């Protein structure tokens, strides 16, 4: 079985975000595999171990993504394709077009991806990708079972579990709780540098300027306001209750 995993590198979730001239500063930041993508990698490896196959990582982003790719290769993925030509970068629209162009050039049975990236959190790319490829998708998977070309997926439906079946090829996106990703092994790290990593440029893909032109303009980037200290209400119980109810209605506007 040919399993593709879409993978992105994101800030370590413990990093603090610093803005400089309206851009997020990247110096000295620790990058990791997008945690949702890490579940996708782990799931791909488990399916491969059970059914045999080949796990290929597909990624679009700057060359520093290689670090995340090497980690996933060290976990056990077999090869990787990275579109690190800046002409390929853009918004969710562009990235899914580029991913589809890369992927349609190769054989695939199952495409796994994270449900969302922890940095911009749009949750759009993999679903758009399925549309571009004209195949079905199941999102927010918490359990995946593959039997022949049939898949049964438990998906997180607003806290409930929905059980969905489908037929390959398809896209499945990983939700937290799908699995416990393994550590890469030390021998895996040594082997990773010998596994094939193909770089893709805009010339390698049949994409029009229209495909590559993003649909979104970022106007401004700013940090959330620092949390203000809470207010402690004190005094007579009845007064406190009245003040609280009023605050909830008028100041906080939550009721």
């Amino acid at each position: 079985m040919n399993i593709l995993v879409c993978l992105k590198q994101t800030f370590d979730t413990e990093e603090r975000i610093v803005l400089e001239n309206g851009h997020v500063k990247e110096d000295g930041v620790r990058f990791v595999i997008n945690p949702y993508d890490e579940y996708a990698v782990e799931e791909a490896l488990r399916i491969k171990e059970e059914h045999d196959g080949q796990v290929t990582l597909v990624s679009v982003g700057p060359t520093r993504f290689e670090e995340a790719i090497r980690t996933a290769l060290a976990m056990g993925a077999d090869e990787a394709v990275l579109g690190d030509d800046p002409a390929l970068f853009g918004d969710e629209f562009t990235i899914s077009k580029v991913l589809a162009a890369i992927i349609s050039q190769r054989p695939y049975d199952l495409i796994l991806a994270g449900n969302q990236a922890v940095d911009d959190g749009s949750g759009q790319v993999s679903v758009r990708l399925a549309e571009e490829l004209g195949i079905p998708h199941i999102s927010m998977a918490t359990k995946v079972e593959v039997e022949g070309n049939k898949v049964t997926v438990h998906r997180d439906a607003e806290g409930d579990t929905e059980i969905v079946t489908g037929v390959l090829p398809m896209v499945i996106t990983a939700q937290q709780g799908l699995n416990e990703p393994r550590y890469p092994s030390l021998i895996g790290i040594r082997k990773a540098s010998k596994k094939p990593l193909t770089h893709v440029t805009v010339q390698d893909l049949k994409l029009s300027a229209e495909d590559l032109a993003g649909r979104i303009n970022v106007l401004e980037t700013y940090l959330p306001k620092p949390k203000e200290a809470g207010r402690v209400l004190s005094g007579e119980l009845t007064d406190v209750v009245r003040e609280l109810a009023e605050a909830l209605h008028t100041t906080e506007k939550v009721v």
Partner: protein
Amino acid sequence: MDFNLSTEQMEMRQLVRDFARDVISPRAAEIDETDEFPRDILQQMGKLGMLGLPIPEQYGGVGADFVAYMTAIEEISYASAALGVILAVHTSVGSFPILYFGTETQKQHYLPLLASGRMIGGFALTESGAGSDAVAIRTRATREGDFYILNGNKVFITNGGEAGVYCVFAVTNPERGARGITTFLVDADTEGFRVGKKEKKMGLHGSATCELHFDDARVPVQNRLGEEGQGFSIAMRLLDGGRIGIAAQGLGIAQAALDAAYAYTRVRKQFGQELNQFQGIQFMLADMATQVEAARWLVYHAAQMRQAGVDCTREASMAKLFATDTAMHVSTDAVQLFGGYGYTRDYPVERYMRDAKITQIYEGTNQIQRMVIARHLQS
């Protein structure tokens, strides 16, 4: 001097660090409290390749270099000095002797077991009458046909009772002094071999330190490591690597103590401000950080020399001396900075202090390191 790690070395260090901080750190206090050998953690470490890091791939290891191996000892010791010494003894003096001096048959048999962690290694030189003066060992080995018969006792043997094989030093020719010592690979299930008392130690809880007894222990001739009389030179060849390993252990403890002290003094308030706002505290932290940094340079300088295959006896001793003295100073100061809380088991710094002490004693006491350094001052 260039201490920049390669991409691969950095990735390996990051993996060990993630594992140490996610898996070992949360268990470290419990391991200290129960003094139980952390077999389950070692099993996981074995699966990830951490127990065969510098062993070549052809023998089931990872094939990483010595520097990468040192970063692993440092990172593991940061979380638990006990696991640090288990790893260091298993690799530096449990596995290396077989790699360097073993026959092809011995390597094929033992190294894949050791590198994967299916077997733990041990090293038995010290005796009650032979500590710093290792040549004074009395354990005897006499040849009888296809066997050597071993008689005697060893003390303070790390991984005692847990190891599957021990590198044991015994006298085959009492007339020849240092040249009359021979090394044997003694399997744990050898007839006439027995693990004795387990020491109750000040620190390093979780790492087993035991007496070993040999009562007519029958060791097959094919388990002799190297030639008869080569034992002492084998021990000497292991010293530099072993010492840098313990230096890396000291460095890991020191860094952990520094980080804990730094974090605590940022939040603890007295006299209306955080402790780290007082200059007296800042000066202590600055001194601690400078010592740790200096120790790091000595450790990785010696490690790179060792990796390059140049003579580093002096540098290994300097690294061992300075990094372990630093572990002691910095952990003692960390307890001081935590005040009364530092003296309780609610915080890890008293453990760091108890663990740091042994690093100044084993693998050649720090007095012995000074003797070695002094002897090498000419060259």
